[in-house]
């Protein structure tokens, strides 16, 4: 019997050949693995959202093992003494058990909540990057719309999840949501009673929100995220302009192995940050809120941060009620404008922005190169305006906490919010526009006159001038011939190689500093000879 020699090194290759013989995957896989991604730190912000979504799916699945989505009344008899003997819904009781009885339940609950906050925060930060760099332009308008929808669906996911534990805080939020739905003219009461199964709070809302939160919304999110990433693959990633980079190519790293490894590592970092926050920072202490009862409400009842702008708009809205004397009389309550009309306008504006801008600039070309925010001052300023608007509303959503902790009158906070909402966005527009123009001008100035060297020369007439290092040959006026290319203009001598290159790294160098280049005219400076310590003879014996 001949013993076959087992070659370990050839095993993966053989297995791969076997798989390819059967499934014919080598050709499409080669295209995928060799796909090139441009590299820049700001291209990784969307991944934070993607990875926190994965953490959300994992921790959320764990929570469903123990959560009971039911409003049946039970009497709590668990280990948290201050609530023992209190009647509450089964949903709240099982959330308490998740926090106090289930091993690891509290850290999972907290990780889930922090991951939700991070998911929304990363979506917003990623969206700002896309906006300010013009990455939404043709052909990527569809992906911009999908991204905006992801924010609003994430908003719904967050709200339904926040409502599930049926604690005093989430019930207050639910009551507000029912009020918002009721404020919609004509259909309001029908809409509310069909969602709540009758008058608020009813007996069914937790079960319905549960299915929405664990099945419908995650499925929708997953589908949209898949399309979002698929479009990034097929339309290719945008890149910054720079040497060798054009509108027709992609310069970067191959997907496999480097890019994939980096992404894997980044997933671990995101997971780690969420786990750390889940373990170190207490979030949503439902045991302090108590079970939801219609007569229970707490000061400082806020929604999670991404809903807070609607709370803020509600707080700033004057009590303008419209009475329509038709039939028995119709009423449009003031709540309708800040909580239904305003988000409607925001959804419309944000999704349609790429088309509005293209129409305004009559720019219907395809763009794969990003723009520096300073090069499109109007867009950057509009973005700053939107950020200012959102910030004022969000801060107003927490204005009672701010008023109390900083000892400001709550009425003053409300009026500051009202005035700020009207004044700060235009101010932000103006200031941002001017800053962009200033930065543009400085870039052009360096291209024309060269880099400041820090060398001051005294002219024969006694005048002092700073010597500039021109970046190119100069014409008779002393102006360079370089055109601005939409990328960073070197503004320091070490960027030109005149001095040693700047040492890379944050806080400490991540590579060995290169020795400074030596000018041909000067010999390298010798280090001074080591000097011996001077000491007296008697002391040297020690």
């Amino acid at each position, binding site marked *: 019997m001949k013993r076959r020699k087992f070659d370990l090194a050839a095993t993966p290759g053989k297995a791969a050949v076997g798989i390819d013989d059967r499934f014919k995957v080598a050709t499409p896989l080669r295209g995928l693995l060799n796909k090139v991604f441009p590299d820049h730190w700001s291209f990784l912000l969307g991944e934070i959202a993607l990875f926190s979504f994965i953490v959300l799916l994992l921790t959320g699945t764990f929570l469903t093992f123990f959560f009971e989505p039911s409003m049946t009344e039970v009497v709590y008899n668990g280990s948290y003494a201050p609530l023992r003997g209190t009647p509450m819904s089964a949903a709240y009781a099982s959330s308490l058990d998740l926090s106090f009885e289930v091993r690891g339940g509290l850290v999972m609950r907290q990780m889930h909540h922090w991951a939700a906050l991070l998911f929304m925060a*990363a979506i917003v930060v990623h969206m700002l990057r896309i906006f300010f760099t013009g990455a939404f332009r043709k052909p990527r308008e569809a992906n911009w719309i999908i991204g905006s929808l992801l924010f609003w669906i994430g908003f719904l996911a967050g709200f339904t999840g926040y409502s599930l534990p049926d604690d005093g805080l989430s019930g207050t939020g639910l009551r507000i949501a029912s009020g918002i739905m009721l404020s919609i003219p004509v259909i309001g009461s029908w809409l509310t009673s069909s969602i709540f199964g009758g008058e608020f709070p009813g007996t069914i809302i937790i079960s319905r929100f549960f299915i929405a939160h664990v099945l419908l919304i995650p499925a929708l999110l997953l589908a949209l995220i898949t399309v979002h990433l698929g479009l990034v693959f097929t339309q290719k990633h945008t890149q910054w302009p720079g040497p060798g980079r054009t509108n027709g190519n992609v310069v970067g790293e191959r997907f496999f192995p480097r890019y994939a490894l980096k992404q894997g590592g980044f997933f671990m970092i*995101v997971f780690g940050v969420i786990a750390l*926050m889940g373990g*170190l920072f207490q979030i949503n202490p439902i045991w302090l*809120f108590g079970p939801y009862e219609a007569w229970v409400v707490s000061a400082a009842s806020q929604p999670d941060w991404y809903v807070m702008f609607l709370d803020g708009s509600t707080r700033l809205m004057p009590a303008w009620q419209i009475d329509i004397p038709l039939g028995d009389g119709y009423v449009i309550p003031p709540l309708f404008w800040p909580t239904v009309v305003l988000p409607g306008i925001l959804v419309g504006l944000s999704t349609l922005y790429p088309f509005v801008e293209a129409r305004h600039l009559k720019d219907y070309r395809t763009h794969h190169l990003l723009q520096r925010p300073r090069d499109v001052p109007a867009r950057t300023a509009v973005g700053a305006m939107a950020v200012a608007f959102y910030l004022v509303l969000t801060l107003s959503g927490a204005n009672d*906490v701010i008023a109390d902790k900083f000892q400001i009158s709550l009425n003053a906070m409300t009026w500051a919010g009202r005035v700020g909402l009207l004044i700060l966005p235009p101010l932000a527009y103006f200031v941002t526009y001017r800053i962009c123009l200033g930065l543009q001008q400085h870039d052009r100035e360096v291209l024309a006159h060269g880099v400041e060297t820090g060398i001051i020369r005294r002219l024969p007439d006694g005048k002092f001038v700073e010597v500039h290092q021109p970046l190119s040959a100069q014409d008779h006026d002393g102006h360079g011939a370089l055109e601005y290319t939409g990328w960073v203009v070197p503004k320091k001598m070490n960027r030109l190689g005149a001095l040693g290159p700047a040492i890379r790294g944050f806080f400490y160098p991540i590579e060995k500093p290169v020795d400074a280049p030596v000018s041909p005219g000067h010999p390298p400076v010798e280090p001074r000879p080591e000097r011996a310590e001077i000491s007296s003879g008697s002391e040297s014996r020690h």
Partner: protein
Amino acid sequence: MTSDNDRRRGLLARLRGRPAARSRGRRRLGAAVRLLAALTLAGGAYTVFAPGAQAQDAPPLSSAAAEGKALFDVSCVTCHGRNAQGVEGRGPSLIGVGAASVEFQVSSGRMPATRQEAQAHRKPPLFTDEQTRQLAQYIQELGGGPELPQGTNLREGGDIATGGELFRINCSQCHAFGAGGGALSSGKFAPSLRPASDRQIYAAMLSGPQNMPVFGDNQLRPDQKADIIAYIQETLKHDQDPGGFNLGRYGPSTEGLAIFLVGIVALVFATLWIAGKS
């Protein structure tokens, strides 16, 4: 003053008519005496039955109250006026506020107030416990009002679960779920309950200081007050925060701040690090 002859006649006869034989001088004297007697009787009856106005000027104060009055006349009289009757536009009358109110305001340092503002702040008390008791006794004897039970432990026998329920119904609207306090209108606020003692919480419920409503014994029975105090003192102040650092228990506003200051900042540095490694 009357003759033997008069004495022999009956009383009615004497009232009906005088003997004609009386001298003019004696008649005049008798009339004067009778007028004097009637006036004395009427004045005496008036003095006995009429509310004595001058009786309040010098009430029979106990020795503790007298000490309290001395303190009052030095530290409180500027705003609350002589005999605690209040000064228009400066300080309210303290007649009838009771010892509970005085103990709350003085022992928590809110009174004497630093300045006129929307609401007095808690600060280190100016008076000792003994002096506070004397002031309270003075105000109590001046006009009556709610009083605290004896002892420093007013949560004896309190049930924290019942107390929690009552706290969430009655207190958390203003003082917030974690008893950290909250804003009210125009610069007024519900203070944090964390520095408050049993007696101060009890006194606040009884007297309703500043913007707080009064929770008299017909709204919250003394045993329910004990439940609430037990919940505040034993659960809210000694909760171990099983989830980690509680971010001040301000609810979602500080959680939102934390996700940007900690989560997003940490991960943006991570992106810089990763992108810098190419």
